[in-house]
């Protein structure tokens, strides 16, 4: 997976958050302040522009540029958290011109570590971590079992989607939803939902490019 692959992933992520912006906004209206879809669409739109206008010759550079752009454009909690996730992943990928599945898995683990360090969320607190953490585990497991890339990424995306659904029954302990306490139960977390969409885009780009 070269820089072009990672650009395609970011572009696909931008497309899916744009088509799903109203849905994400609605999720955020239920337990937040109704701006998640708007913010993510704006941020990833800016990522697409930045990737067109700026040089990012390696996978690491692509994700680092995307992360920095999100920090500068999104605001809220999502900007720093998604920004940190992508910057951490980018840093993990270093300078290599091509990343294999193991390098991608390590990068996503670094993303998770970065998010958890910044936001201090653990699994079960109804956040983006509840989509990212199971996804990282599923990818590691698939890798260990010798699954091919598209199968492994399908497992990643499926685990993220399930993780996002699992947030429905959780009570929010972090972020704006936590102000609602028990009233946050019964609603999917918007950050987990957007994370599942972004990891789904990764699976889709890999599947399209499979030989």
């Amino acid at each position, binding site marked *: 997976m070269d820089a072009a692959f990672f650009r395609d992933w970011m572009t696909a992520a931008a497309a899916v958050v744009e088509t799903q912006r109203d849905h994400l906004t609605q999720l955020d209206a239920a337990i937040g302040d109704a701006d998640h879809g*708007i913010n993510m669409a704006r941020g990833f739109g800016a990522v697409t522009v930045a990737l067109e206008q700026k040089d990012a010759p390696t996978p690491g550079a692509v994700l680092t540029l995307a992360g920095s752009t999100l920090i500068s454009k999104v605001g809220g909690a999502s900007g720093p958290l998604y920004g940190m996730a992508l910057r951490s992943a980018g840093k993990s990928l270093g300078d290599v011109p091509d990343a294999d599945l193991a390098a991608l898995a390590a990068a996503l683990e670094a993303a998770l570590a970065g998010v958890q360090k910044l936001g201090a969320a653990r699994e079960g607190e109804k956040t983006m971590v509840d989509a990212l953490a199971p996804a990282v585990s599923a990818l590691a497991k698939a890798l260990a079992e010798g699954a091919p890339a598209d199968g492994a990424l399908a497992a990643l995306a499926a685990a993220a989607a399930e993780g996002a659904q699992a947030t429905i029954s959780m009570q929010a302990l972090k972020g*704006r939803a936590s102000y609602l306490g028990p009233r946050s139960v019964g609603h999917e977390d918007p950050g987990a939902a957007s994370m599942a969409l972004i990891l789904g885009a990764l699976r889709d780009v890999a599947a399209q490019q499979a030989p």
Partner: protein
Amino acid sequence: MKKLINAPDTVVTDALAGVAAAHPSLAVDIENKVITRAGGPTPGKVGLVSGGGSGHEPLHGGFVGLGMLDAACPGEVFTSPVPDQMLAATKAVDGGAGVLHIVKNYTGDVLNFQMAAELAADEGIDVTSVVVNDDVAVQDSLYTAGRRGVGATVFVEKIAGALAERGAPLADVAAVATEVNERSRSFGVALTSCTIPAAGKPTFELGDNEIELGIGIHGEPGRRRAPLAPAAELAAAALDAIHADQPLTGDLLVMVNGMGGTPLIELYLLYNEVHKYLAGKGARITRNLVGNYITSLEMQGFSVTVCRMTDTLEQLWDAPVDTPALRWGR
């Protein structure tokens, strides 16, 4: 929902252009979204920077000026601003005596201001941050993101601003800001939700006879839903919650704040109820504000903020201030 806008995407920039045109005392960088005093930083004075989502006007841009903020960073509606803004603001207000960041306690505000403070430190600017968390509606526990920063932000900006204007050092300005935060408590009640321009419909629905108790300032639901009641009962509900957390005694600064959609006649009516309630507790209101100071677009509702005063804090409150939203003493 009818709004006086041109298009949802340009609300913030169009409004900032209006602020710039209306207030020559302000320098408004519309592209970078930073509002500063037109005269620039005061050498030797601590610079005060705050910021947050747009939609709470006059907070924070309306409080930039002599005796209060040096800079405000407006984000997108109800969205924390980004580190770039706070860094630019910090550099713009640095008079060589350090900079105070006044940060409302929301995850986004805290994270973005934290990143900005680190970047500013990298550039050699001395930054101290004070987090405002006066809202009693959220039970402060390990199980939430902590108490929200609401009305006390206005008190902190005014009182810390006054001390900074006297030339006090950064540590002292930060200390008084912290003291005001610790002496202040707030509670809000909504009669309606509000509509974010880009979302097009209210963030939550309240029935004709319903109110929301313990609201924040972003249209997010609060502690619980309840039936509409007379103003006296709503004032009592708010003040009971505050009193349970921090007993209301002595000399008080009280703000009865409109959420944006409530007429002044109702805010004064509420102030009467607040005044009677506090007299009943044996407390004395020595300073007050009644009006729209920290709003939530067109939400109908109010918040009460109470600060237990000292002589020093009263002197700082009375100190001259010259901003679009607060002006006295000159």
